[in-house]
């Protein structure tokens, strides 16, 4: 199963596959996306915590957090003699000097990565494939949405998601996640987070167009010396067939709390069922053996 297959079931009602391109190189960590998402989707409060993890007091995606802005603080070794330096990192260091009153030695090699995480709306979505009730489904926009009037809270999608996106709302029992603002999409509106993003770090549009935008952006960044830039989830040959919501990152995915090589585990279902059938066969042989070796009833 894949997005293309599932979209085809809509026949003439199918729309172009829509998605997000989150360009973390221009994220300023304002969390407007988190707020807009909560407001529009009436997502409950997810705890007023102080984590001490930089400016991230949200923690991570879950039932009550559908956008999560990650803050990564790094001190890198001194820039090479050649002087080649990322303009992003340079701008961040300048800001630290000007706004935090640090001197240039203290900010040497410092950079701050910010990234707004969201449901990936996978091409091969594990949550959707394992959902036994059909509550999780592929919309006509190619996005993955939970039908809250169907979900019975079995919880299977929670550990099935390779990104830890879904979770059960405790007092409610059902699972919740980003809908890519399905209601807004049906009215030709862009999702709340993308609408609120002041830097266009979150871009919404037809996935094909976003791919082209991202490719061009990556080229620009690399030409400007930001060689650590890479696209995450753009590659349709990855373990989940590519993301409907993909990213431009400036470090390894795991630095942002993202899996470096996610796979949809249902692709191994053949192996698993074969193994289960073999084990059941062996069990039958064991029972037969016990009955034979156990002798006649006396």
């Amino acid at each position, binding site marked *: *199963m894949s997005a293309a297959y599932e979209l085809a079931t809509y026949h003439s009602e199918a729309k172009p596959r829509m998605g997000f391109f989150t360009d973390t190189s221009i994220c300023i960590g304002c969390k407007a996306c988190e707020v807009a998402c909560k407001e529009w989707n009436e997502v409950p409060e997810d705890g007023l915590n102080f984590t*001490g993890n*930089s400016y991230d007091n949200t923690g991570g995606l879950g039932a009550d957090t559908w956008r999560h802005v*990650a803050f*990564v*603080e*790094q*001190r890198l*070794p001194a*820039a*090479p003699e050649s002087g*080649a330096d*990322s303009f992003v990192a340079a701008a961040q260091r300048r800001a630290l000097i000007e706004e*935090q009153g640090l001197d240039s030695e203290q900010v040497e090699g410092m950079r701050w990565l910010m990234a707004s995480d969201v449901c990936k709306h996978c091409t091969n979505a*594990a949550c959707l494939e*394992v*959902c*036994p*009730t*059909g509550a999780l489904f592929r919309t006509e926009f190619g996005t993955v949405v939970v039908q809250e009037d*169907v*979900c*019975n*809270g*079995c919880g*299977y999608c*929670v*550990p*099935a998601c390779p*990104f830890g996106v879904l*979770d*059960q709302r405790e007092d*409610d029992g*059902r699972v919740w996640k980003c809908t890519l603002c399905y209601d807004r999409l049906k009215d030709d509106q862009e999702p709340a987070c993308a609408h609120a993003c002041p830097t266009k770090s979150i871009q919404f549009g037809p996935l094909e167009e976003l791919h082209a935008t991202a490719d061009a952006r990556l080229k620009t960044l690399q030409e400007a*010396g930001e*060689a*650590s830039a890479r696209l995450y989830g753009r590659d349709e040959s990855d373990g989940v067939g590519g993301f409907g919501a993909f990213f431009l990152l400036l470090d*390894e995915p*795991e*630095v942002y*709390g993202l899996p*470096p*090589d*996610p796979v949809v*585990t249902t692709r191994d*279902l053949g192996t698993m*069922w074969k*193994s*289960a059938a073999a*084990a*059941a*066969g062996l*069990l039958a042989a064991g*029972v*037969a053996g*016990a*009955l034979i*070796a*156990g002798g006649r*009833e006396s």
Partner: protein
Amino acid sequence: MSGNGDQRLGPGTMTTSGTGARTPPAPLRPGDNGAGLRPVAGRATPQSYYGKPIIAEPVWSWEIPLYFFTGGLGGASAMLAAGADLTGRTTLARRAWLCALAGVGVSPPLLISDLGRPARFLNMLRMVKVTSPMSMGTWLLLGTSGATAAATANNLFGLLGPAGRIAKPVAGALGGMLTTYTAVLISDTAVPVWHEARRELPFLFAASAAASAGAAATLTTPSRHAAPARLLAAGGAAASVGVMQLMEHRLGEVGEPYSKGTPGILGRAAEACAACGAAAVAFGGRRRPAVARAGAGLLLAGAVLERWSVFRAGFASARDPKYTVGPQRARADARAG
């Protein structure tokens, strides 16, 4: 690894990356190709975001591992009962059918009570979904329960005529899959210690289901009729210990949660119960029924403990990002060359 989850960072006290644990200070230099600069050796410790998990811990509670036990007991008992019926062992067959009915009978309430919305349990029957082991399992459990009920009614009261007789092998066959599909259910998740054990887990569950069914029949059947049950109990227990060892060995580092912490203690207790129980059943035999029954009790306890160990290991594996990131990073690096 990690241990950096509590590291306090402020804007004025930045340290290396979100991981803090990247000890050799040779990460990435701006303007350099990350792949070229960071040798694989430098990634001995997988990186993480403040030591936070990548995947979500399961939300399932105690009902689920208990169901793995009752489903296994019910399924394997149906198999034993069908076989005993087929070979004319009426005493053993009767007891085994009752054990099977008890096992598959308590299973649905357990599963329903674990749902976030128990009142919506019928939504499970909205569809037959081959990509969802839980959907397949629902139908499998429904089929096994129905067939077992019919077979038991036929065995006990001669009800249902030919349909009841046909139900016996059907219950046995479906019961076999009922014991092992639960391994598919948990293997088909992103939890490393479950997914990576996808080849071994069905055999582990089948072996301990055999031990459970044999033990339950040993407990309930007069000892002179229980020889096949004792063999099944001891053989299944021995096999389960062997498979557990093999599984931990084959998984290597990813399999650590099976042998560490609470799951490790539960696992060792399960193995001790299985070993002692098997020995007691074998030693007790036909002549010392009390010893054999005590051994059977140990085997049942061991089967419960083993499911609990596997269940809790999944939580430990999901919680620590190194189990998720480590193998994935190695895969990605290998692909990149």
